[in-house]
């Protein structure tokens, strides 16, 4: 409690300078709240998200001889590896989809999810000084990590579309692809939100994720098709939410493709659930992040 000294006296007022009008009229009220982040706050974070995303993207290619050439080289190398691994083992039943297109669709969805999870889930830890010492909105870091993974995705996804067009299998449903991307974005943002906010308190997330992601790739029909699996393995793979997205994208791209409706339904439900949980976990942990990071 205050004691001993009075506050400013009348004589002092004449010597003190005038006050300036506010640069920013916002009034911030801090109380012991469990949650303070609102959806509309995130919607106004466009500028800082774009600066952070371009930083995350640029930093990848700093002091690099090839720089952005890696954007093209990496998916090509991966594609070749998948072609050798799966094609080498035998014919994959792709129901009329050229194998390269078939694989590129799977690769684009999976590599986007993997890259986003890798950058996004550690984003609050790598930006710990911002989290602790600046008023920068925390939700901008994981979102920027996801956005920074988009350029690499666009390269692979475009290759798939061009491949489908060149081989003459392209469907008019390709116009639905933006919704397909939005679907993957929502699922990814939800998962990144959960992982990033838990990693602030529990570093176990950082240990578990690379393992989960490297195992996860085997449980997504990237280089193989669902049709070639045993009923049990097929169910396991269909439970992976990325599987439904890959199946839906192939259906959007290729006229003759018949997707697994089980996988699509599972993925839609999981996407909604993960998005809601992701938001709740993130916004619930956001107020104490500076205290426990």
């Amino acid at each position, binding site marked *: *409690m*205050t*004691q*001993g*000294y*009075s*506050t*400013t006296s009348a004589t*002092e*007022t004449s010597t*003190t*300078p*005038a*006050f*300036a009008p*506010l*640069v*920013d*009229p*916002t*009034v*911030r*009220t*801090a*109380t*012991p*709240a469990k949650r*303070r982040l609102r959806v509309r706050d995130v919607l106004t974070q466009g*500028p*800082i998200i774009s*600066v*952070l995303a371009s*930083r995350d993207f*640029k*930093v990848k290619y*700093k*002091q690099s001889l090839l720089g952005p050439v890696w954007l093209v080289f990496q998916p090509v190398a991966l594609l070749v590896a998948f072609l050798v691994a799966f094609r080498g083992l035998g014919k994959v039943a792709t129901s009329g989809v050229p194998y390269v297109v078939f694989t590129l669709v799977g690769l684009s969805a999976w590599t986007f999810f993997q890259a986003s999870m890798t950058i996004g889930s550690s984003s609050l830890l790598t*930006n710990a*000084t*911002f*989290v*602790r*010492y*600046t*008023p*920068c909105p925390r939700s*901008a870091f994981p979102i920027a990590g996801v956005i920074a993974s988009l350029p690499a995705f666009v390269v692979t996804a475009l290759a798939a579309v061009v491949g489908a067009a060149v081989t003459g299998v392209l469907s008019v449903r390709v116009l639905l692809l933006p919704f397909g991307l939005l679907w993957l974005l929502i699922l990814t943002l939800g998962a990144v939100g959960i992982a990033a906010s838990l990693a602030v*308190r*529990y*570093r176990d997330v950082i240990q578990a994720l690379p393992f989960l992601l490297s195992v996860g790739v085997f449980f997504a029909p990237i280089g193989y098709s669902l049709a070639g699996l045993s009923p049990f393995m097929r169910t396991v793979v269909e439970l992976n939410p990325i599987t439904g997205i890959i199946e839906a994208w192939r259906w959007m791209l290729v006229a003759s493709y018949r997707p697994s409706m089980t996988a699509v339904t599972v993925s839609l439900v999981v996407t909604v659930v993960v998005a809601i949980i992701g938001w709740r976990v993130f916004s619930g942990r956001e*107020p*104490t992040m*500076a*205290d*426990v990071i």
Partner: protein
Amino acid sequence: MGALHEHGDRPVAVTAAGIGKHYDLGELENLRRTLRKLTRRDTARPPGLEALSDVDFTIWRGEAVAFLGTNGSGKSTLLQLLTGTTLPTRGVMQVHGRVLPLLAVGLGFHPELTGHENVLLFASSLGIDRATIEARMDDVTAFAELDRHMDTPVKRYSSGMVSRLSFAIAVQFPADIYIFDEVLAVVDGEFQERCLAEIKRLHAGGRTVIFVSHHHHQVIDVCERALWLDRGRLVAEGPAGEVTAAYEQALHASAA
């Protein structure tokens, strides 16, 4: 705002009422603790620390105010609350306008990014729009004396260059409340003088300045008013000269 908060003709910049902040002590998570929780042998709350208790104060817009106190008195926690990086455990704090904090030098710089890119990043993180940032860039560069280095990655800067860039950002962008936490100690004499002059210029321009320094002549030079914190409690507030003198006396008394 409104009539309730008027002080003469000045509106408030910050109001704090009954502010308390609790921290858990010790390691937050480890294997031993997990096992004890699983076997239900550890139901007690971890030991805690009241970094702040029952702190009330008002800072008027356009004022320059210092926080005095030894290490562990709660100054940094209070500045974090003002910045908005954490919430109080008890009480209500209201902050009017944009806060530009300099809580430590070089914070938030990415070593691989250039000086220019880092200024853009840091200023954007405060909510300043791109056009304003680009418009102020020349002033930032000039103040930091880094005109030939703005396109060089910050990892190749000397520590002096990093501090100069930090300060340039902290004083050259428009904000309503500027916070400086013991940062003048890291820069050399001539630049320190320029920083002090710049902080006084902000204050003269009617901006609110919150200043923490262990150099009490700087406190008296910059601030009109001082608030003295001791073990998380506000023990005195008043004209900077008087409170600083009383604080120094108490320091000497406890040392003797």
